[in-house]
């Protein structure tokens, strides 16, 4: 289904690969058919217009939605449900309203002994600058604080694959830059692979090794760009700005097409 010239591709021996992946909600097709793979690069950026199917893709990879058609493999195994080595930051904070910030962050660490869990949670809370709010309830948090709790909950699990759905959208510029820096620190090391959905093209360019541009619904890949710039990247550099222009053009063009 993918047109020549646009470059979605399937590379063998990657972490994730999908063939003819389709997701429909009743009669409404939200995604696909989509064939692509990723995993040799550390950070895969995903950008695209609102409602094009980005979150649906992420939810499929996380094993939270049933596939309507096609196949999807992680590490060679078909995806059938949530996996222990994947962590997700949802588009909304999704905190458990009855649990304190500390308990929300420690939710996935039930396999650790208490002391170790406590330590990991505290470290994560310090990271997102919410250590003072460890005992607060979700209803006492601001929007950005709640989102940071969600980020801490995912990071603390030290997953093999981290799925991020616009994780920094509700953060102020300074916090955002700090979180981006932190992500760069851990990626490839603590967290080997990241899939990052974002609306901020510059953010995608600063963090990603490869960016796919989606359009839809149904979601399809309209551009697939390798970003081979050294990190940390400077936003003012010419190659950076060239990539940015390319993506913006694709997005605005694609959107015009859809309108």
């Amino acid at each position, binding site marked *: 289904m993918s047109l020549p010239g646009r470059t979605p591709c399937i590379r063998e021996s990657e972490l994730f690969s999908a063939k003819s992946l389709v997701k429909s909600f009743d009669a409404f097709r939200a995604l696909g058919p989509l064939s692509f793979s990723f995993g040799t690069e550390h950070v895969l950026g995903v950008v695209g217009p609102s409602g094009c199917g980005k979150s649906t893709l992420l939810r499929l990879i996380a094993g*939270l939605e049933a596939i309507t058609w096609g196949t999807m493999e992680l590490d060679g195994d078909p995806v059938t449900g*949530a996996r222990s080595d*994947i962590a997700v930051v949802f588009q*909304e904070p*999704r905190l*458990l309203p*009855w649990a304190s910030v500390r308990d929300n962050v420690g939710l*996935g660490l039930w396999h650790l002994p208490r002391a170790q869990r406590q330590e990991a949670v505290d470290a994560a809370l310090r990271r997102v600058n919410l250590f003072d709010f460890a005992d607060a*309830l*979700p209803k006492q948090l601001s929007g950005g604080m709640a989102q940071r709790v969600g980020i801490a909950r995912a990071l603390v699990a030290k997953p093999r694959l981290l799925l991020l759905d616009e994780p920094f959208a509700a953060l102020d510029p300074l916090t955002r830059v700090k979180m981006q820096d932190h992500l760069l620190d851990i990626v490839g090391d603590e967290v080997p692979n990241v899939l990052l959905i974002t609306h901020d093209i510059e953010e995608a360019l600063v963090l990603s090794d490869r960016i796919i541009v989606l359009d839809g619904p149904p979601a399809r890949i309209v551009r697939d760009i390798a970003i081979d710039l050294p990190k940390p990247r400077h936003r003012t550099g010419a190659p950076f700005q060239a990539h940015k222009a390319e993506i913006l053009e694709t997005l605005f063009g694609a959107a015009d097409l859809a309108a």
Partner: protein
Amino acid sequence: MSDQAIAIDKRSGQFNGALLERLRRLGIALILPASIIAAWHLTAVSGRVPAYLLPQPLEVLNWLVRLVSTGELQRHLSTSIARAGIGFALGVSAATVLGVLTGYLLGWRRVVDPTIHALRTIPGLAWSPMFILWFGIGESSKYALIALVTFFPVYLNTMAGVAGVDRKLIEVGRVNRLSGLRMMTRILLPASLPSYFVGLRQSMGIAWIVLVAAELMGASSGIGFLLLDGQMTGRPALVMACMIIFALCGKITDIAISTIARHVLAWQDTLHTGE
């Protein structure tokens, strides 16, 4: 609270304030019952209704005093409390486990739930011959009957609560690899707690109510027995005294459960959370 703390609170006026607020609320809560009793008294003394049909409040009070001073009430109450308590505990435990299972697992729901809803509408009174048969006329048949009827409200509320948990939160559990018991205790039960407590409050009320039917099965003490006795022997004042005892007992257990609920559900973000 230590004496010192009270002193400090008093100085700042907060202790008095909280106490006053409580008394004020109690006063407000008593407006309605007080007016009902007043209306009742006026009707009774007006003489328009014969005394054997509508006993005077004072006569009922008289009964209450007599029951307490002879120690009879204490005897009947302690028997009944044991029955209601044990039956309630049995019924609620079973209902909680089954409610969570059927709420979360579609397979269970399809097998078990339809039958439970059919059994739900069989009158407790109809069961009693069978219960006497199975459990004898001792205490066990009473526990069983109370357990049976207290089962349903908690079951229904738990099941509906669990089945109604936002998919978003269940996904959080899945993504964090919670399953089985952990999924229940961390996600399903907390999320359905508001509904669960409604079930508990109802079941507790029903545990009191069904004492009457339970104590029809060969009991010679208990407040349900006392009420039946008053009815069989044509003593309306005693019946009313028993009704008041039922109301008070029910009210006390209800306050207990709803106080626990208020604390446990403090995380809720509602208009009057904690009221």
